């Protein structure tokens, strides 16, 4: 098994290196390297999965990474049912999206660069999942962030794209800062970062306060990566990246890393019940908050982005109420239907020569049949209509929330489910059906995408249809999926009533109906969609003004402070008339004496002040 495990990251790594080094020669044949690499990686994952199903697990070191004195950390891979499932999702969905990209990115100048980054991302993501200790997890946590940053800004000629990349990185730094501290705290508390040892040593001998601190710091990292409140702002902007990137990184895999991490360290979270409560509530609030913003967006990808944030909230809510298997199951099914929706949206955009605005779409279903059918399947999956995958996984979470006594949370999630069904079918009716609002030119060019793009759509649609029935049917011993994960997560109590599924179906259908009433029953004009009807609508359109708030509270003061420090702090007492490098140079050239300040003396004064302060401090301490 050891060899098989290391093969999984090896293939994409080789793909990355080949395309990076010979990209100029390979050019538009880059997919011949990248796609087979992923295929091979997927096959290896599948083989590993089969072994794990047979009860095998694997933990092994590649080599000692940091070994100094008491502190030892190795490059360790750990395979258990949880990572096997994640591997299958990452490489499987990754493979389909690679295939799709070969069509979608066809003719782009940075074709080879694109596949280099994409392979690098899959490598990092696989390593993140395989990591057997927190340090390695952190390393690849950063690495996937870097890939995400590179891919969001892939079309850097667009100012908005490179800004979005920067924003993603900076917001993630905030989360990673907490994550890093959390890992340090784990190290000081347990003296190791190895999963097995940490979880084995996580007992009552450590105070609850410490566990709470660790858990909340880790969760801070998860919030950044998985775009939960209040660190969610980067994800909608990340849609500036190419659509396959949005599908792979910002829907199916990377953003779910936070959920994976919380589930992986559930032993630590369980030692601090408060932290789980917080996880659940942040998840629940994010689910409703993001869904409500999704109600009014007019950019098809932005709707999907807010939908992703909202669905990630469901996963956290599930994990937070202790239904780990349900959370991970939703992660898997979400990977299927959200990748499907993004790729479908990409196909629509592709067919409309780059149009993303819902106000300029409509009635394209007849001319893009495969795309339309698969998109509707995905939408139904997201809305949670039975018997599709989303129904089973979301229902698991709702049921868990209801049965664990989180009634308020349950109602919150139910409201979110209603909104979800509404906004996604709003997209369906506006984009695919109803009256055509296409520009003349676009209408002329509408065409179905090539097979290399539609085949992945069909496969994902198939998965969306069968995954729930195959894995998610509840039985006396829980679902098939939760039984598979039983070695990792404690078995959940089974046999829940029919009430919750019934309510959730009713709510979902109601949402779909409302969407139909508003957008599907009769043709709507572009103006009707966009103009804010009232204050609430306007608030939603502005995404609750979170970006503006951050700008005013953090960004601008920091720059003001920096500029102030550069002038005042670093120069000591100087002539206030001088305020600009450019002006100074000019002034110097003109020989204006009034701006000539003798800095050597200022510097020396600073040094003297420092020396006096140090001596005074030391003397005061010695008293």
């Amino acid at each position, binding site marked *: 098994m050891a060899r098989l495990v290391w093969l999984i990251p090896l293939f994409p790594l080789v793909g990355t290196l080949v395309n990076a080094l010979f990209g100029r020669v390979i050019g538009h044949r880059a997919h011949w390297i990248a796609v087979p690499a992923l295929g091979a990686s997927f096959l290896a994952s599948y083989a590993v999965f089969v072994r794990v199903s047979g009860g095998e697990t694997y933990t092994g070191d590649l080599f000692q990474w940091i070994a100094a004195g008491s502190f030892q950390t190795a490059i360790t891979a750990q395979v258990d049912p949880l990572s096997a499932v994640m591997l299958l999702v990452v490489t499987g969905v990754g493979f389909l999206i690679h295939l799709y990209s070969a069509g979608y990115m066809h003719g782009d100048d940075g074709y080879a660069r694109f596949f280099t980054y994409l392979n690098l991302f899959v490598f990092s993501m696989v390593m993140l999942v395989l990591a057997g200790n927190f340090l390695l997890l952190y390393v690849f946590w950063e690495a996937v962030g870097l890939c995400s940053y590179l891919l969001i800004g892939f079309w850097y000629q667009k100012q908005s794209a490179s800004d979005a990349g920067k924003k993603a990185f900076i917001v993630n730094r905030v989360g990673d800062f907490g994550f890093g501290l959390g890992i340090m705290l784990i190290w000081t508390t347990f003296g190791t970062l190895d999963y097995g040892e940490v979880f084995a040593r996580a007992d009552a001998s450590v105070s609850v306060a410490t566990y709470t601190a660790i858990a909340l710091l880790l969760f801070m990292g998860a919030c950044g990566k998985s775009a939960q409140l209040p660190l969610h702002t980067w994800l909608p902007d990340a849609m500036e990246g190419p659509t396959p990137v949005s599908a792979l990184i910002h829907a199916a895999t990377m953003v779910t890393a936070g959920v994976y991490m919380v589930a992986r360290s559930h032993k630590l979270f369980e030692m601090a019940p408060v932290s789980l409560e917080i996880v659940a509530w942040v998840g629940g609030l994010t689910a409703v908050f993001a869904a409500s913003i999704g109600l009014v967006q007019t950019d098809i990808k932005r709707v999907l982005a807010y939908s992703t944030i909202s669905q990630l909230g469901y996963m956290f809510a599930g994990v937070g109420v202790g239904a780990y298997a349900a959370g991970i199951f939703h992660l898997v099914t979400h990977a299927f239907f959200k990748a499907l929706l993004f790729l479908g949206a990409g196909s629509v955009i592709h067919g409309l020569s780059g149009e993303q605005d819902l106000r300029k779409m409509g009635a394209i279903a007849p001319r893009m049949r495969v795309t339309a059918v698969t998109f509707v399947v995905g939408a139904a999956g997201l809305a949670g209509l039975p018997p599709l995958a989303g129904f089973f996984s979301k229902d698991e979470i709702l049921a868990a929330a209801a049965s664990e006594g989180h009634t308020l949370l349950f109602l919150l999630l139910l409201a979110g489910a209603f909104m979800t069904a509404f906004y996604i079918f709003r997209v369906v009716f506006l984009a695919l059906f109803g009256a055509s609002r296409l520009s003349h030119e676009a209408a002329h060019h509408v065409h179905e995408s090539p097979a290399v793009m539609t085949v992945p759509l069909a496969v994902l649609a198939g998965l969306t249809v069968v995954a729930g029935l195959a894995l998610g049917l509840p039985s006396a011993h829980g679902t098939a999926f939760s039984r598979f994960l039983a070695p990792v997560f404690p078995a959940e109590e089974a046999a829940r009533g029919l009430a919750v599924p019934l309510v959730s179906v009713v709510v979902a259908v109601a949402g779909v109906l409302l969407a139909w009433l508003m957008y599907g029953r009769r043709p709507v004009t572009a103006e009707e969609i966009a103009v804010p009807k009232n204050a609430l609508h306007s608030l939603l359109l502005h995404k609750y003004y979170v970006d503006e708030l951050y700008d005013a509270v953090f960004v601008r003061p920091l720059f003001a402070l920096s500029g102030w420090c*550069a*002038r005042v702090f*670093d*120069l000591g007492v100087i002539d206030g008339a001088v305020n600009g*490098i450019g002006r*100074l*140079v000019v002034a*110097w050239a003109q020989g204006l004496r009034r701006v*000539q*300040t*003798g*800095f*050597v*003396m200022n510097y*020396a*004064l600073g040094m*003297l002040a420092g020396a006096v302060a140090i001596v005074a401090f030391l003397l005061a301490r010695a008293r």
Partner: protein
Amino acid sequence: MVPESHYVALSAVLFVIGVVGVLIRRNPLVIFMSIELMLNAANLALVAFGQRHGTAQGQALVFFVMCVAAAEVAVGLAIIVSIFRMRRRLSVDELSLMRW
């Protein structure tokens, strides 16, 4: 007999005068002379402390400081002269091209 503490106090006064000179003068040569004053003050302290501890070590240390001072003067004056040749001006308050 004058106690050594007097010498040390005198050296402290000299040192501070040197420091103040560096801070308030604009001519690099004068600034540099003030720095020499500081080194000189240190020398005086070293000799006095040496007497106090009953060892000639202080005097040996002063010997090294003198060498350092000589080397510094040579290099420092060469730098100042080369700047003067470039600018035809000599005042540190005019040496402020780079800032911020």
